[in-house]
């Protein structure tokens, strides 16, 4: 039985044969070369993983660093770091950011909608134009090849709304002025959806959304409030992407156990939990394995940065044991820690993290 892997050095599909003979699609690694049709395109591997169709290996989503290693290419479609200081966002606000902290995103310097009657002014004078001419310029020069192409709206939905209205204000509004929250959601999700509508003609396979709903111990808002206000917006957004032939990737940090079933119900294709452990390995395995594809990293707040090789491998094994490997349902999210500015205890940790997923399937 042969296994398929990606050669991390050159991103070329490599077949590992029973006698350890390495062969590649174009024969670069040895002879004889063999029929290209034997290879599964990397996009196909990702799609099979998403739909539990036995991809044969765990696809890799390299978030940053050497992207040639990735089965997924992510292109960001919104501008969040404009200007000389890279502190201006397309959404109109500036980041209050430490220039010496490459890992830090910053916090919004100003809140546009301090009072709800300022929303119309925000929409008129500051909100992004989803149809701006250079919206898809980041695609230029990207070598997608046979890979899966994901268009990222970067920070989205609720998270973006907190930047415009203020975090504390928006949370209180959800209880006291839910209709105003919906007005702002109409604006933010509306702009996002207008961008999504343009994506198919550029060949995107998926839309990536990054929104945070969990804290270290619970959700930020009650599941009932989430369902009442935000679930319909996600439903509309996911349906739109699906109708346009694209899949949906959603990131959230924290403990979101109460709404995991809602994401399944909404038809979300890829769920990226920043901290799988906070949601309970047993809970995920027993209730959600096989129902939604997880895109999972080694915990980059703890193990990936501070752990030993053995600890990193152990966590990867736990993730694979929880979610499955070759049969689908798991995509490994990988980071170049140094490139992210995260200073791991060993310069080898980035490589350990990558190898940890490869070596265990």
């Amino acid at each position, binding site marked *: 039985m042969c296994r398929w892997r990606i050669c991390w050095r050159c991103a070329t599909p490599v077949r590992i044969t029973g006698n350890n003979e390495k062969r590649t699609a174009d024969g670069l690694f040895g002879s004889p070369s063999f029929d290209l049709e034997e290879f599964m395109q990397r996009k196909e591997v990702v799609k099979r993983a998403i739909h539990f169709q036995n991809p044969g290996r765990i696809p890799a989503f390299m978030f940053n660093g050497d992207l040639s290693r990735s089965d997924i290419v992510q292109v960001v479609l919104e501008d969040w770091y404009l200007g000389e200081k890279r502190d201006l966002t397309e959404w109109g606000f500036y980041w*209050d*950011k*430490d220039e*010496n*902290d490459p*890992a*830090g*995103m*910053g*916090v919004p310097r100003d809140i546009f909608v301090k009072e709800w009657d300022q929303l119309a002014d925000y929409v008129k004078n500051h909100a992004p134009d989803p149809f701006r001419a250079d919206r898809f310029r980041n695609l230029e020069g990207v070598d997608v090849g046979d890979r899966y192409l994901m268009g990222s709206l970067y920070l989205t939905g609720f998270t973006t709304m907190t930047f415009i209205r203020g*975090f*504390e204000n928006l*949370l*209180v509004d*959800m*209880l*006291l002025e839910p209709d105003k929250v919906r007005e702002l959601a109409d604006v933010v999700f509306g702009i996002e959806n207008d961008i999504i509508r343009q994506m198919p003609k550029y060949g995107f396979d998926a839309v990536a959304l990054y929104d*945070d709903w969990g*804290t*270290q*111990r*619970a*959700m*930020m*808002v*009650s599941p009932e*409030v989430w369902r009442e206000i935000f679930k319909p917006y996600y439903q509309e957004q996911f349906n739109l992407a699906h109708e346009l032939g694209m899949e949906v990737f959603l990131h959230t940090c924290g403990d979101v156990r109460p709404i995991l079933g809602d994401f399944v119900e909404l038809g979300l294709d890829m769920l990226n939990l920043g901290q799988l452990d906070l949601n309970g390995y047993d809970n995920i395995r027993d209730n959600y394995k096989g129902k939604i594809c997880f895109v999972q990293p080694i915990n980059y*707040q*703890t193990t990936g*940065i*501070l752990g030993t090789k053995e600890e990193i491998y152990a966590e990867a094994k736990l993730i694979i044991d929880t979610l499955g490997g070759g049969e689908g349902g798991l995509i490994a999210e990988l980071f170049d820690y140094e490139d992210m*500015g*995260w*200073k791991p205890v060993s310069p080898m940790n980035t490589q350990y993290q990558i190898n940890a997923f490869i070596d265990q399937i």
Partner: protein
Amino acid sequence: MNIALYKQISDNVQKGRVNQVKNLVEQALKEGCSPEDVLEYGLISAMDCVGIRFKNYHIFVPEVIIASRAMNAALEILEPMLIQDTKRRGRAVIGTIEGDFHDIGKNLVTIMLKGAGIDTLDLGTNVSPERFLKNAEEFRADLVCVSASITTTMTNIPGLLRYFEKEGVRGKYTVLIGGAPVNESFCREIGADGYSSNAASCAKLAAELLKQNGF
């Protein structure tokens, strides 16, 4: 003691009904209740309940914020009448450590500290040791609460403690630390006074430590 009235105040604080709380506090004072009792049995007891319900996942951050706002509205009425700060539960300054701009957790802790009746000055994000100390001195703080949300910035926390030691004020302040990568063993290792894994338990820990110090 008008227990029924205190209960009404407490119930309305928990529901975040600002106007009702203000009216009830005014009524209690008119009826001769002491501001200390209104604070203790009406407001702080309400926020204790809020803390417990938050810790047990019965309510979430928005409910805590609106309760906290109701309590603070009532405090504005009581504050001039309270004898100095003796009935408050101490003072705290809070911020994320230098280099760290992640403030959601810190904001939650701030809300819970205020809700626990602790006068809290939020210094925001990316706070240098010098700024922590300057504000702690000016605010006459008892607690210094520091968070780091990523491993890179967590390593800046020991520098804060060293700076306080160098300035000869380390013993003057109780330093609490928190944040996703921080844990109990890190707290012990660097010699901080307390660690908490979440906002509700941080407020509880802060109140306990302040109580030990005579508040």
